[in-house]
């Protein structure tokens, strides 16, 4: 049959398009074209009125910024601390919670509560808790067990761990719920079999539970690294990057390039740095996608 506009219309072509058009338009304007534009802009210098191609200048400028090294080290430091604090704690809590027979819903709800608090509110509240004076909330608590007041956000050495503690508190609930769901899918026969072999409670956790969770653990690891590599809110609101640049992160640097100067940002350098960060993260996302695809097809 010949394809004409009429057969297209009769075959439902128009209504198909009507359903897909909103998504196509919104994605074209607010997702696809900005993504492409970001790669183009990283080779340009623009003040929104005139635009000129500058080759790799933006990349060179960014890479020679003395603050970039600091920002990368800080971001990695945040990511590593977030793994040390944020990985084992939710896992341990989830394993313990899954053994609770009654009131599981209450436990999950309590654990998830910090996740629903808007991050800005959480950060501003914790900023008050972190007060460095002897009457600060956390310092008062430390005083109960005889520990002297800590400087928390005020010192370059303790600022980053303080941010990570708050970030872990804010995010742990989400991880706990995901681990709880994963724990339900561990086949009970495996525990039965381990018991026939005389395994103790700890050996069952170590040799059955954890290996069965390795898929979800790996996914959470990658997702956490992708999220922490783009950390912005905590350093921006807690410390503004201080003290002494100890909490400047890569995303804060991008923000500073683009938006700190009210006369017009250095958009080229900001996009050049975003593109470099994105390439690193895209590799991680790709690994994540491939791995989840393999697991879900099994």
């Amino acid at each position, binding site marked *: 049959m010949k394809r004409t506009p009429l057969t297209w219309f009769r075959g439902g072509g128009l209504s198909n398009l009507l359903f897909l058009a*909103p998504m196509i338009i919104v994605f074209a304007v607010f997702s696809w074209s900005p993504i492409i534009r970001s790669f183009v802009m990283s080779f340009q210098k623009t003040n*929104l009125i005139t635009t000129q191609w500058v080759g790799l200048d933006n990349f060179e400028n960014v890479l020679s910024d003395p603050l970039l090294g600091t920002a990368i080290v800080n971001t990695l430091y945040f990511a590593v601390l977030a793994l040390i604090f944020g990985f084992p704690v939710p896992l341990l809590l989830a394993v313990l919670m899954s053994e609770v027979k009654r009131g599981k819903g209450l436990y999950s*709800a309590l654990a998830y509560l910090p996740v629903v608090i808007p991050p800005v509110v959480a950060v501003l509240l914790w900023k008050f808790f972190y007060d460095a004076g002897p009457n600060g909330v956390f310092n008062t608590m430390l005083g109960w067990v005889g520990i002297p007041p800590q400087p928390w956000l005020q010192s370059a050495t303790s600022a980053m761990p303080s941010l990570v503690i708050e970030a872990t508190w804010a995010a742990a609930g989400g991880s706990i719920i995901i681990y709880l769901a994963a724990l339900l899918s561990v086949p*009970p026969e495996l525990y039965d079999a381990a018991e026939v072999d005389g395994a103790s409670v700890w050996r069952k956790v170590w040799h059955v539970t954890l290996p069965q969770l390795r898929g979800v653990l790996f996914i959470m690891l990658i997702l956490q690294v992708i999220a922490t590599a783009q950390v912005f809110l905590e350093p921006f609101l807690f410390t503004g990057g201080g003290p002494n640049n100890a909490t400047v992160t890569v995303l804060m640097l991008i923000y500073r390039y683009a938006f700190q100067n009210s006369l017009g940002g250095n958009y080229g350098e900001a996009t050049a740095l975003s593109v470099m960060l994105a390439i690193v993260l895209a590799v991680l996302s790709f690994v994540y996608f491939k791995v989840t695809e393999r697991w879900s097809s099994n």
Partner: protein
Amino acid sequence: MSTKRADAEPDVDRGVLSSYDRRRGSVRAGMSLVHVLLLGGLVIAGLGPILWLAKAAVTSTADTITQPIALWPNGIDWANLAQAWFEVHIDQYFLNTVLLALGSWLFSLFIATTAGYGLSVLRPKYAGILNAAVLATLFVPSVVLLVPLYLTIVHPPVGHSLLNNYLAVWLPAATNAFNILLVKRFFDNLPREVFEAARTDGAGPFRLFWSIVLPMSRPILGVVSVFAIIASLKDYLWPMLVLPDPAVQPLGVRLPAIQSQVELDVFLAALAISTVIPIVLFLAFQRVFLRSAGLGGAVKG
């Protein structure tokens, strides 16, 4: 060991501990201890900061500063809440927050359901390419969008600048590939026979969408709603950039800015007011929240 296990009743939804384990004295004592520690820890860490904030919202500044961890304030200062609501104009920012969340929710639902329906049920020839193009955006971290999307808002392809216009928040919020993917996967699993039957009865694509597919999809619509509303309430950087006028800013953007201008007790009252919407939503729709979280609450840009 095996003989002891033989008399244990079959335990299908067991975890690490078997019913035999649970009868052992040491495990019992251990589990009781775990119970107490777990519940105590979760109450302190999960509920503690919120209760503290609720108390601080009705406590005078001097009281909060000198005795931050007192369980009960020396005299309740209700005026903080009224002052925050009326004088600091939290009422206005509260309304802005609600409007931003409602709009993001409606646009996200609209785009996710129409796109999911088009890609999963109608499936025109170009659906495969579109699907790939949507999926591809999942690999692009949100940081890439920041500057070019901001410039798109300042100079949109048609019309004037969208700065201080809520569309600048609503429309980008709707370009969420993860929501579309969720809805599409859900539609993929709906029984095709029902669609065929409806088509035989003469239902067109709009009728099929509105009267058959959407009513069958309540669970996934709930999940997408939670994602969209929570994402909107949590957002900070994007609304701060595209809504520079304080009169249209939501609470989340305003709070850091007003901190230096108001007294501590009023500020803490404002923080407390800001937690009301998400906490009420969470308590009302707890099961949807926890199901969404299990689905991948951690999946973001």
